[in-house]
């Protein structure tokens, strides 16, 4: 039996998150075959089988974050000999932290000071650095753990794509002067168009949005903060916000302005489905010029406005609700109409109230007459 321990496949990797297993228990593998996909601080990489044999046990669940040196896979290679992996100094190092703890504390002066300031006894902290070195992050984790043990709180650490999404959102919230306008639209014509043409609501809303963006190119743009300039794009790369398991992804439909409704419908189905199954590549989530956040699939109750955060470096985002039956004043009377609530958020440094109202006016026009957008 061969125990495959999570190797340090980067330079100084401490831990990794398991994204996907490409093997199953009982399956035969050949040395060098891809067995799993993992996400590190930097990248997503594939792990290769170190031995040929039958998969005996998969020891880590998808989504789990494990430390380097943890047994992740057991391969029955018809041998009881594990000498070659055990004898490597690299493997020995991995087991050192717990032993080092008893002997002496290894850390830098900065971390010692940080620990003293926070009243942490370094002898109780297990180092994750090279040769059991205690890093600042180890002390921080120790403090959080202490707090959580006292309060019973659960600590969730952001990792990988979720962390970069969080950082981007924080950047947008910190540096942009976001303002927003909420409005309701009568979607009766859209509903009719959807059933007549057998298209999804998202496709038709996207088509109306594309028509509007073509008339208001300043909204279809990215910001270059360093040079204080707005780069207005000559084509529309529409980002669509997708909620996948516990993370928010924004896959991009490239050059969507030149596509017809069937092509758009097919790409939306493809990209949202792959997004929900975590199958998007990093390059499919770059280069958007405008973002659409449509939450119809997950809404409950009557939601009439939100505060969308712009997908930096875009300058605007449109949130659109599901259609709900609501009273609507039409030709002097009250009718029951399908109503869609929207919020348009934009960066006030580059776009102003008048731009926003003009944008919304044309968007409503397309919504009332969707065939002009198709």
């Amino acid at each position: 039996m061969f125990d495959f321990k999570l190797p340090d496949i980067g330079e100084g990797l401490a831990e990794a998150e398991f994204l996907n297993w490409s093997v199953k228990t009982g399956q035969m593998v050949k040395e060098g075959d891809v067995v799993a996909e993992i996400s590190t601080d930097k990248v997503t990489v594939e792990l290769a089988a170190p031995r040929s044999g039958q998969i005996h046990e998969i020891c880590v669940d998808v989504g789990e974050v494990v430390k380097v040196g943890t047994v992740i896979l057991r391969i029955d290679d018809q041998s009881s000999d594990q000498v070659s992996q055990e004898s490597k100094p690299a493997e020995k190092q991995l087991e050192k932290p717990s032993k080092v703890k008893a002997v002496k504390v290894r850390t830098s002066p900065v971390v010692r000071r940080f620990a003293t300031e926070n009243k942490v006894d370094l002898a109780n902290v297990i180092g994750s650095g090279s040769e059991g070195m205690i890093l600042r992050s180890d002390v921080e984790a120790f403090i959080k753990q202490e707090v959580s043990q006292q309060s019973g709180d659960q600590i969730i650490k952001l990792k990988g794509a979720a962390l970069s999404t969080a950082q981007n959102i924080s950047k947008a919230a910190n540096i942009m002067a976001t303002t927003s306008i909420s409005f309701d639209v009568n979607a009766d014509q859209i509903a009719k168009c959807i059933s007549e043409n057998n298209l999804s609501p998202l496709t038709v809303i996207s088509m109306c949005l594309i028509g509007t963006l073509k008339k208001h190119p300043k909204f279809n743009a990215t910001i270059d903060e360093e040079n204080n300039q707005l780069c207005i794009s000559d084509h529309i790369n529409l980002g669509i916000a997708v909620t996948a398991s516990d993370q928010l992804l924004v896959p991009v439909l490239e050059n969507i302005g030149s596509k017809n409704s069937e092509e758009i419908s097919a790409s939306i189905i493809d990209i949202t489905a792959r997004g929900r199954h975590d199958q998007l590549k990093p390059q499919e989530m770059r280069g958007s010029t405008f973002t659409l956040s449509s939450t119809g699939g997950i809404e409950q109750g009557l939601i009439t406005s939100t505060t969308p955060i712009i997908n930096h470096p875009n300058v605007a985002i449109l949130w659109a609700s599901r259609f709900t039956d609501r009273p609507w004043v039409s030709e002097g009377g009250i009718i029951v109409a399908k109503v869609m609530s929207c919020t348009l958020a934009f960066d006030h440094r580059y776009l102003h109230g008048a731009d926003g109202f003009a944008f919304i006016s044309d968007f409503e026009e397309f919504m009332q007459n969707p065939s002009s957008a198709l």
Partner: protein
Amino acid sequence: MSTQSDNKFTGNPREPEPVPLAQADELGIKQVLDCDGNANGNLADPNLSEDEVRKFYEMMVLVRAIDDRGWKLQRSGRIAFWIPLLGQEAVQVGVTCALDDKDWIFRAHRELAVWLLRGKSLKMLFAQFYGAEEEPLRGRRLPCLIGSRDINLISSTTQVGASLPHAVGAAWAAKLLGGSEKFLIFFGDGSASRGEFHSAMNFAGIHQPPVMMVCVNNGWAVTTPLDRQTASANFAAKGDNYGVRNVRVDGNDPLALYAVTKDAHDNIEEYGPTLIEAVTFRLGYHTSSDNPDLYRHEQECELWKPWDPVRRLRLYMENKGWWDQTREDALIALHEKEIQEAVTAAEAMKIPGPASQFDDVFAETNWMIEEQKERILSEVKADD
């Protein structure tokens, strides 16, 4: 992306440039083979014998197989690091075969073929990847940074370009001592932006040592593309201002690389030093710690694949009736077996202990080295 400013790299992969090898005549690139292995380029076929061409081909296929295996060993945690060579097989084989065995070679990062062409074993090559005690550098260098004094092969520094003045200086020393050996250094496009390149080129132009400087221009210096690397027309042209003869050659054409290097080598008394720019492309990752998806357009590799050096040489050999699928299958099976044997042998070798890092620092040890050694050993002992 048109949405990005043209003047700075914003993180989005840019649209790929056309493959320069397709416009060899216009761009002044010496070429024997066209894309499909026909010898109808601007440089005459050196008319090597069947045995010689087969040696080229078999070595290119072998280093590609080693690269594939090394990558998998790294990705399963069995070796610490890997430097891929995919797409750059021709330059290491064509250039090395044009030299005499007594000539000195200073490596860049990806030239594994030099080791094997100079008669060293596959087993010792894998021993280096594993950092084994018995390999010539005693496990002290990153995997792939091979070197061995007995074959006049100098290991590269991890700092790119740092060996350029060494190679030029060594060549000058040999000239002063009246030796007949010649010197060659491989370096990348990124090295050409370093001060050492200027020092070495300036020195080479003035003192005319017997040296050939091969700039392996593979399109990317880690994440830096060519248009962020130099404003010169190309890398060979930089030689003009130093008074150094220079030539651009198809870096994916082993026959052209051989012919150009052989010419520079055999006529070094007349020509003086030559700067050779080998125009190639890195199809793989920079190293196992890299992720080209973050900076390189995926289409760029697709554009270069038809210019694959292994494919082109194979087509050339098939046209001559020197190669077929049976031979190919036999070669692949042979390499698989040989590599497996080398991996098994290397994996069983001893890894140097912590004390060995203090050996060979000076010819004779001194109190400082001894003191450090004692301290490290006592700490290691405490941990055990």
